[in-house]
């Protein structure tokens, strides 16, 4: 019987080439110095840790159990049948059983725990569609902490559902730009109905944290290496659960934490020549934010507002504004440094898909397997279907179903034309 892993995995120890260091930009204050004032201290340590196996604190492990880890790893027989596959097996790890409905909770719990360890009483973050905000709200509730979320005003209005859930959980959700921060007030002065952006929301969150840095901590939802590290519980469990070793492993990419969380433990084994020697790894992104397939590998800010230090990654530029697709979690300009390296080296392949084809794949999956996928996760499904169709008998495919789509009926109804 699989149990919650005792350690997270840090792929930095096994990469074929080293991860480029974070950097400060040429101008302005040191963003690296700023980190100490906004992030829980252990997270900073993890970001710069050389440890291959990072122990998961007992209390975080207990929380992982409480929220439903280990999550299931299942075979999608009905999908195989619907695709008319001959002896091609499709498996998926399902993170949608977590109360947040997605993998995001894996890191939110760890981050909230470390924030509390620092003596903080409040966790602060930004969110657009709300996956990260919801995960943070749950983590804060479970650790008995206050939670403040800056939610882009456009989403605050148009996507009340996840917002209400956050509020039920006790989080204070501010439409961003807000009156709480200087940057918010300035923007509101220009436009009372400013729709906001993730960049503005991050800036507000950071400014808000800096007002009471002993009591508050800022929690980032992806891209940072420590986020990927926390997510490796997914892949570590999956390895234990696999009845057969996959030939192809697939996951979608927003900032890369979902992909890294699922695949890194396997890629690590491959790099250490301990298994998965012939396995292909495929990262699936949205054509709306195709950093891996069309971005440049360069130093860029992980945040649109340039508050955080530069990291070397595939990026479309921090000012890139992706079209408003429903898979809001994939509307991100860059990909985590470790993932970017793996793609650059060809160890991870990347593909990008359009929203329409993705949602059709999601519907096929739902009709076969009875689970409505999150639009983000549906990108992986589309790739799985394409790859499976071309696979020879005996092929085993595994993917991460990072979340359910119960709160994404909007996406389904609009893209699929359901009235």
């Amino acid at each position, binding site marked *: 019987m699989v149990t919650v892993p005792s350690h997270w995995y*840090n792929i*930095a*120890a*096994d*990469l*074929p*080439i*080293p*991860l*480029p*260091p*974070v*950097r*400060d930009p*040429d101008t302005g204050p*040191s963003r*690296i*110095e700023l*980190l*100490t004032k906004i992030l829980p*201290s*252990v997270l*900073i*340590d993890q*970001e*710069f*840790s*050389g*440890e*291959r196996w990072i122990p998961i604190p007992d209390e975080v492990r207990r929380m992982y159990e409480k929220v439903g880890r280990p999550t299931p790893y299942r075979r999608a027989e009905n999908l195989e049948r619907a695709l008319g596959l001959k002896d091609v097996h499709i498996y998926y790890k399902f993170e949608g059983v977590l109360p947040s409905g997605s993998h995001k909770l894996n890191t939110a719990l760890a981050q909230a725990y470390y924030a509390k360890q620092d003596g903080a009483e409040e966790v602060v973050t930004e969110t657009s569609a709300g996956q990260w905000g919801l995960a943070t709200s749950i983590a804060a509730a479970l650790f008995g902490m206050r939670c403040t979320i800056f939610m882009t005003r456009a989403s605050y209005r148009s996507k009340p559902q996840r917002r209400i859930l956050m509020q039920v959980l006790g989080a204070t959700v501010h439409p961003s730009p807000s009156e709480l921060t200087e940057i918010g007030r300035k923007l509101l002065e220009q436009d009372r109905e400013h729709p906001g952006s993730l960049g503005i929301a991050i800036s507000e969150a950071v400014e808000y944290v800096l007002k009471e840095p002993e009591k508050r901590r800022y929690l980032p939802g992806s891209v940072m*290496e420590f986020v990927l590290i926390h997510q490796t519980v997914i892949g570590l469990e999956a390895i234990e659960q696999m009845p057969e070793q996959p030939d192809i492993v697939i996951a979608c990419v927003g900032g890369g934490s979902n992909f890294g969380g699922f695949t890194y433990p396997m890629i690590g084994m491959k790099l250490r020549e301990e298994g998965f020697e012939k396995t292909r790894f495929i990262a699936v992104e949205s054509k709306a934010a195709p950093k891996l397939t069309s971005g440049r590998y360069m130093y860029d800010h992980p945040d649109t507002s340039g508050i955080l*230090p530069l990291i*070397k990654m595939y990026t479309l530029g921090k000012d890139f504004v992706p079209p408003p697709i429903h898979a809001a979690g994939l509307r991100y300009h860059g990909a985590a440094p470790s993932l970017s390296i793996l793609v650059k080296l060809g160890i991870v392949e990347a593909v990008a898909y359009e929203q329409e084809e993705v949602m059709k794949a999601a519907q096929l999956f739902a009709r076969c397997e009875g689970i409505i996928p999150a639009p983000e996760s549906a990108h992986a499904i589309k790739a799985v279907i394409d790859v499976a169709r071309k696979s020879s008998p005996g092929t085993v495919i595994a993917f991460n179903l990072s979340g359910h789509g119960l709160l994404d009926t909007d996406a389904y109804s609009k893209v699929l034309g359901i009235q």
Partner: protein
Amino acid sequence: MVHVPINVSSCTKLILYLTATYPSTATFLNILETVSSIVDLFEIGVPTNNPKYDGPTVRMTHRAAELKGMEALDVLKGNVPRDFVIMAYMEDHVDKLELFLKKCAEVGARGVLMPDLLFDYYEMVEKFVNECRKFGLEPCFFISSKFPYREVERLVELRPLFIYLGLQACSGVRLPIFIERNVKIYRNIIGDRCPLIVGFAIKSPDDVKLLKRLRVDGIVIGSAFIKELSRCGIECGLKLLESLKRALVE
């Protein structure tokens, strides 16, 4: 020039980082003289417009140095009373690496450390080593605190003068990183096969004692010294170094 062996020993060396010709050529040379009895090895930075992996303090010295690039290098010739290695970014010299290394050899450097070599010019490691050796320079390697284990092995096999582990995200900025753990990891991988020196944000005798206990072969002082210098001149810088040296030899 006093030659102190850099090797894996029970005795941890004190290494001072300075940016060549900062704050002025004269003061720079004066510093070299003043601290030479305490310092075992100098790491001298070639002033650049783009000290990309450095923290705010070292960045400032690059901008404020009297001379830039090769010109600043010239100043070193015959003027460094101890062994020294040159620190420079590959990015600045990649097009004329041979020329640059030749110059380093000419001015008397024992080795060369390029902090961006392994991150941004990974495919050039062999070339760098070969060119160094060609000019009688010993290659040095800078690694970060999350460096792939197997790649460290590879570096060890290239027999550098030392491997320099950056303890922090960048020079001079102290983050809440559990450096003890990271040092142990890399010391453990390297074993006794190659000297391991460490640097970034080392500033107190306690820091030094901790690192000594961790059996590093050298500690590099950089921003802490520069800050003392800015605060109250060479005297203060000297005092700092003395106190750190005491901690080292105690």
